[in-house]
């Protein structure tokens, strides 16, 4: 029997190896299809070396049943009692927390402080108030939730940052005392398996942010129904998803998270324009702000994240709400922590613009802020990204204002397109000079035929068929709030044209639009 069982072991081993090998045949196929052809121009030795690396990388990235293996790994680590798995540690309250950069003090903090205070100073010169919002890290104030022997530096770093901002008289709002004063609050306001705060944590943050902004901009926020949680409906999906930390450890180690979203009980009509992705949504909060696909159907644990329900990370997002109680323009410089907050703010502020410096490359932040000229600039970062973000402010790059010259005044442009998208746009014949900065103003946009809620413009080069930038506007909001205003730089090379679209580019069909009082000005240098 001993020999038979050993033979069975031998057979089982062979079957196991064969099964996994055949299951991964695509890895080998993809290697020969996509990787190997890239190296045919190299010498034999180099080709071999590159191929080895490429094949090894493919096996690691594409191995079949990777999710199952991650689960097995997490389960094993749990069984042997490990507190830490793949750079994620289990806190004393059962939540997960990512370690890594948190384990050492932030060496870039002095530069971060310098950049934030510098930006605040420049905005002050422009007459724009600035507010730095210190988001909480996923930790209680004293780090008592950490297993003995691990120290996080995010809270001490935040303390240093806030002290420096106070010394430099830069307005700051510390959310930690409200969002994460205790371990219980941490559980209530953060996801168990993800590094983000949840809908309730973001809502709490929004309440504090609006009240602070009200102080700065002198509006009354004491009776805003949008800030009462009772005016929001809670939709819960139980054991719904595995967050970023859970995906590193497997759900057998971390558990699963419930997912809650807050939908306003009051009426809303909000538009969201995402110019870089040519996306435009308009309607009730739940239709325009919430990405419902991640809550309507069970998501794939390792391939999708429910957090995207609050919106994707995009370079620019423009929320417009005609019926907002506060007719102010707030511009938020943020990372993904801001995604749920933006949505809540869009129910309160008429104009909410969002910029994510991880994706925004068009200009420096300072140039963007100068062009947008909001009523207030709010900076909201997860502590682990702030130092990286601070390298992208570009405080020194603003050129002095010399005035501008009108190159086209009060022109009307009509664009007629049919259902086959013929003539979907019209080019402004006015030539544009390379390397110059222009401002395009449109007083009013009239829909002559069809229906569209938004409209696109574009800076386009017909020779190379490339679009440099293509802003997207809410049509109704534009007409009711002083028109559209677009400032842009013309690239150094190529012959560029401004295009006016009959609706949202490539999204709407068969519309005809009339752009009234179009003015083009060139900045003087």
């Amino acid at each position, binding site marked *: 029997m001993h020999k038979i069982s050993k033979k069975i072991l031998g057979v089982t*081993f062979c079957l196991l190896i064969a099964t*996994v090998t055949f299951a991964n045949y695509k890895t080998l196929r993809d290697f020969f299809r996509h990787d190997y052809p890239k190296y045919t121009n190299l010498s034999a030795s180099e080709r071999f070396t590159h191929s080895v690396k490429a094949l090894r990388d493919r*096996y690691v990235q594409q191995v079949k049943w990777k999710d199952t293996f*991650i689960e097995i*790994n997490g389960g*094993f680590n749990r069984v042997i009692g490990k*507190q830490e798995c793949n750079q994620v540690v289990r806190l004393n309250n059962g939540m997960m927390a990512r370690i890594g950069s948190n384990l050492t003090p932030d060496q870039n903090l002095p530069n971060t402080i310098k950049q934030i205070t510098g930006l605040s100073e420049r905005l002050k010169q422009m007459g724009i108030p600035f507010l730095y919002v210190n988001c909480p890290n996923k930790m209680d104030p004293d780090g008592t939730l950490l297993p003995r*022997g691990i120290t996080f530096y995010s809270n001490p770093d935040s303390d240093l940052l806030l002290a420096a901002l106070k010394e430099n008289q830069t307005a700051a709002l510390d959310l930690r005392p409200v969002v994460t004063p205790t371990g219980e609050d941490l559980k209530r306001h953060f996801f168990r398996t993800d590094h983000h705060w949840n809908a309730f944590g973001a809502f709490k943050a929004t309440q504090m942010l609006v009240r602070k902004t009200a102080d700065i901009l002198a509006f009354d926020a004491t009776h805003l129904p949008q800030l009462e949680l009772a005016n929001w409906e809670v939709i819960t999906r139980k054991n719904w998803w595995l967050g970023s930390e859970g995906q590193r450890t497997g759900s057998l180690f971390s558990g699963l998270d419930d997912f809650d979203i807050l939908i306003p009980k009051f009426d809303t009509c909000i538009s969201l324009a995402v110019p870089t992705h040519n996306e435009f949504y308009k309607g009730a909060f739940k239709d325009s702000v919430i990405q419902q696909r991640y809550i309507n159907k069970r998501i794939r644990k390792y391939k999708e994240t429910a957090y995207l329900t609050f919106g994707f990370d995009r370079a620019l997002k423009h929320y417009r709400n005609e019926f907002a109680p506060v007719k102010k323009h707030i511009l938020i410089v943020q990372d993904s922590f801001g995604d749920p907050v933006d949505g809540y703010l869009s129910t309160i502020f008429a104009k909410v613009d969002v910029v994510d410096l991880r994706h925004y490359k068009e200009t420096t932040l300072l140039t963007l802020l100068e062009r947008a000229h909001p009523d207030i600039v709010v900076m909201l970062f997860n502590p682990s990204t702030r130092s990286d973000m601070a390298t992208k402010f570009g405080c020194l790059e603003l050129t002095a204002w010399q005035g501008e010259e009108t190159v086209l005044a009060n022109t009307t442009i009509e664009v007629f397109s049919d259902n086959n998208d013929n003539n979907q746009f019209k080019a402004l014949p006015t030539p544009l000079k390379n390397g110059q900065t222009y401002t395009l103003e449109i007083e009013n946009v009239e829909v002559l035929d069809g229906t569209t809620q938004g409209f696109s413009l574009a800076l386009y080069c017909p020779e190379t068929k490339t679009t440099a930038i293509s802003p997207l506007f809410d049509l109704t909001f534009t007409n009711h709030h002083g028109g559209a205003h677009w400032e842009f730089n013309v690239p150094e090379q190529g012959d560029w044209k401004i295009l006016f679209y009959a609706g949202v580019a490539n999204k709407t069909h068969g519309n005809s639009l009339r752009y009234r009082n179009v003015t083009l000005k060139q900045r003087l240098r």
Partner: protein
Amino acid sequence: MLFTSLEFLFLFLPITLGVYFLLKGAARNYWLLVTSLFFYAWGEPSFVVVMLGSILFNYVITLAMVWLKLKRFRKTAKWMLGLAITGNLLFLGTYKYLNFITENLRDFFPSLQGAIPQTSILLPIGISFFTFQSMSYVIDVYRRDAKVQTNLANLALYVVLFPQMIAGPIVRYVTVFKQIEHRVITFDMFSAGVLKFLYGFNKKMLLANLCAILADECFGASTLSVASAWLGAIAYTLQIYFDFCGYSEMAIGLGWMLGFPFPRNFNYPYISKTITEFWQRWHISLGRWFRDYVYFPLGGSRVTSKWRLIFNLSIVWAATGIWHGAQWTFILWGALYGVIIICEKLCDWPKKVKASLPLRLIYQPVTLLFVVLGWVLFRSPTLASAVHYLKAMFGIQATGLYDDRFFFNIDSYGLLLLVAIFCATPMLKNFTKRLAMRHMAAAKIFMILGYLLQLILFIIGISFLVMNAHNPFIYFNF
């Protein structure tokens, strides 16, 4: 390529074994040779040429040596042997030690820095292993323990056979030369190889690699408490054993699968009662190589003069230390073992300890203590860092008796360390034997459960590969 990699398990191994068993006779040898060369080239293709050059050198010189012997030019044949050994040692010395030599000469004699160039020769993977195997071939043929190999491909196969080429065990030519020509593989043997491979894989992935995380953290810390220092030392002691033992068992298992009877390389070294015994249980193939090819030719223990014995042992232990690497820590490590073994030999200590329980109770822990401290030296990149760590272990320049990190590591790794310590002893093996003697049915069930456990652990081990987890291999650089 590592045995513990996805591309080995799910690309190289199934293809190699699959085609191997479809072929017959000499074709199998050629296939194994090609795949072994591919296996070696996977790490660094340019070194394949270097290795083939070494094989060709040994092939030609051995043929010449045998021809001279046949023609009764015995003295010249002996010179040929000497030339072969010198050539191999020069080859090994150049690639492995020249950088170390030039660097130290430049440090010790600054005025000669202009005359002594700073070399930066890359180290071919496994050079110590395959060079020693090549020398084994030449010597075994000279001694007539094995016939000369007239087929260059077969000789190349012996040297480059992928299971043991890169990290041992050092397989002597006399052990496998018959199987190279003709071998019979039964499914029993194949299955035994599978089991051995699984033991090795699981030891490496689940014990060695996890202990490595703890060891690296402790050895990498700038400040240590006494408890953390000891924890790190123990973790490394377990890491290096399961790492090397695991890899050897994988190699042996693969060898058995292919029909080659590779010998055991580890025999529970941490239960040794004396340092002498430790080296009979640790890296057995290396120990036997030095014994058979260096120690015995020098006269071994059967010398009349005590000083000659000391000299013989000193040579062997200096060579053992140097074999491990071009670093002062390895040399010192080997020298310290040499000193202790010399003392044990002169006092006839192993016999006394074996015969006396009280002595055993004292000396066995002392032996283990010395081994652990020796590993600290072995692990450290410099003598200074070794001294720093050892000081922390004994409370000098330590940050107290214990620290918070110690408790965290005990929480996280305590169970693992206990299991590792248990697995480092033959307790389970002895239990199985006793169970088999008393209750055969229970023993069989126990064994089947054991096989099932190995498969489950294998899958868990693969999960670590998929997670791209910590997967260093210590003896890869030798």
